[in-house]
């Protein structure tokens, strides 16, 4: 099995006297989808913020491609190849897909005073990359606001991959989507994984995670309850671990097993 692209060991994070993370270990290998599961408040957000360089851990070690590393800023993490797609997607609805795709990283042609935005190249690349993800745009000049939630998610993912993401962190990409759009996004994750990108898929929906995940790590109250491979665990067990087992068992009794 390939070496992990990023490996995080015994990460802790304290905010004042609140212990958000109490020793979490996690790694991602190229071409796998590693699901990070946890209920609200489990520490998922804090953990990915550390991974993407937004926060610094209170203690613990991060190895990137085998070398110990500490990211000074989100920018540094991005340049190293860790791309994060947050729930707000960093997209501007009034701007075209092509302009959003290259926002902040515009291709140029010409030099000096004549250095200008290469709109033709932007259009071509965007159309090609979106088609590779299975979305046929009406035109790359279509405003992002006209796309569905799932399509927007796909644009954000395609953009991250195009700009050389080695690790792609997806923060609850399916939480606000309908059934059909969710399957599209899951299919996109599968395509990205096959290109050799390590995907970190954050979710609290076990069914979505089971659909694409290769490995699963469950966070509960700032602790990891271990990492399991796909064939080692069932979705019921994951669900139990997320909710802390016992309480959910009680709840399930009254809800007759529908959760």
């Amino acid at each position, binding site marked *: 099995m390939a070496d992990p692209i990023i490996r995080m060991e015994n990460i802790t994070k304290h905010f004042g006297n609140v212990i958000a993370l109490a020793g979490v270990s996690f790694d991602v290998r190229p071409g796998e989808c590693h699901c990070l599961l946890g209920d609200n408040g489990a520490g998922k957000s804090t953990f990915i913020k550390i991974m993407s360089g937004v926060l610094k851990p209170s203690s613990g070690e991060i190895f990137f491609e085998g070398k110990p590393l500490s990211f000074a800023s989100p920018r540094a993490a991005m340049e190293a190849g860790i791309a994060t797609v947050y729930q*707000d997607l*960093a997209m501007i609805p*009034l701007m075209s897909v092509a302009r959003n795709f290259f926002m902040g990283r515009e291709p140029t042609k010409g030099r000096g005073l004549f250095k200008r935005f290469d709109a033709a190249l932007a259009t071509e690349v965007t159309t090609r990359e979106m088609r590779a993800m299975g979305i046929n745009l009406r035109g*790359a000049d279509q*405003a992002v606001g006209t796309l569905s939630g799932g399509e927007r998610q796909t644009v954000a993912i395609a953009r991250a991959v195009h700009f050389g993401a080695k690790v792609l962190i997806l923060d609850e990409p399916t939480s606000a989507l309908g059934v059909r759009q969710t399957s599209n996004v899951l299919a996109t994750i599968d395509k990205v994984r096959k290109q050799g990108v390590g995907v970190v898929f954050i979710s609290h929906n076990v069914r979505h995670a089971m659909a694409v995940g290769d490995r699963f790590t469950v966070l509960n109250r700032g602790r990891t309850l271990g990492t399991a491979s796909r064939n080692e665990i069932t979705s019921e067990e994951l669900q139990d671990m997320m909710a802390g087992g016992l309480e959910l068992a009680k709840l399930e009794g009254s809800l007759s097993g529908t959760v």
Partner: protein
Amino acid sequence: MAVDANNDVDERVKAESFVARLLKRPELGAIAGVILITIFFMLTADASMFTLSGVMNFMSPAAQLGILAIAASMLMIGGEFDLSIGSMVAFAGMIFGGCVVNLGLPLVLAIPTTLAFAALVGAANGQTVIRTGLPSFIVTLALLFILRGLSLVGLKWLTGGSTQLRGIRDAVEGDFLTPFFSGDAFPGLFAWMAANGWVETFSNGSPKVPGIPVEILWFVVLAIAATYVLLRTPAGNWIFAAGGDANAASNSGVPVRKVKIALFMLTATCAALLAIMQVLDAGSTDARRGFQKEFEAIIAAVIGGCLLTGGYGSAIGAFFGAIIFGMVVIGLTYTGIDQDWFQVFLGSMLLLAVIFNNIIRKRVTGER
């Protein structure tokens, strides 16, 4: 865009008609407005309005407003307002007058000094907005009063008690830079056309229109430059992004702060440019110069398709918005209509434009 010959075209998407594509251009409203106003004045106004001299007559105020409106439209696309540009005209006029008359500087020093001073105020404006996180509406409203007051106080100090500084024409007499900022361009060309009988002449043979007023040239050049920057440069993309969603833009690596500060510097500098031209033309500067121009510039930008919320609009739209303005303010004098209808017209035009822009925005974003 290349037409795809592939058969994997989404069957749910109807082919877009040319009209539908046109409807999505932000400047459409302003162009339609120019056409409607032209038809209106062709029917109601004296025929002399659309002769060469008539056109120069309304293009000159249009250009003066347009220089402000184009800068204001770029700032609005970038998501901010600048209500201080009108006062900035008076303030920059005072600085310029002081440089030329009181210090006796040649234009080659006075003009850069004035522009640099304005840019500095613009940068301070931008810094305040960004550092405090307050709406630019309030911050620049404060500056509107501060600059107007400083212009009054400063002019009294420079002139020893008057709010008008005179003697500028004498001070710049013969300066080689004067023709670039005042008077008419291409007089030779117009004299030559008059000699050939192509343009109207006075009885002594000199052309009725001695040349193109320089502000019109500045206006056109500025509109082209602004459009180029907005649509064809990375900086243009950053302006749209900063106005569309500053947070998303900076998460994607757009230098939002720098973009916004640069835009505030641009509006202030354009106000100073207008001040220099007005002061050179009039030969004096006055503390009331540029009064309420900030509102007129914003109205022209909105007629030109800018959204008040930022992230959408066009400089070409502001260009046509300013022309509409000039046509109406001057055009009414060619008709029998009371000129004071102008303000009624202006307000209605603004209201119509805002409603129209809102519809367009919904079309673009596909909101329902």
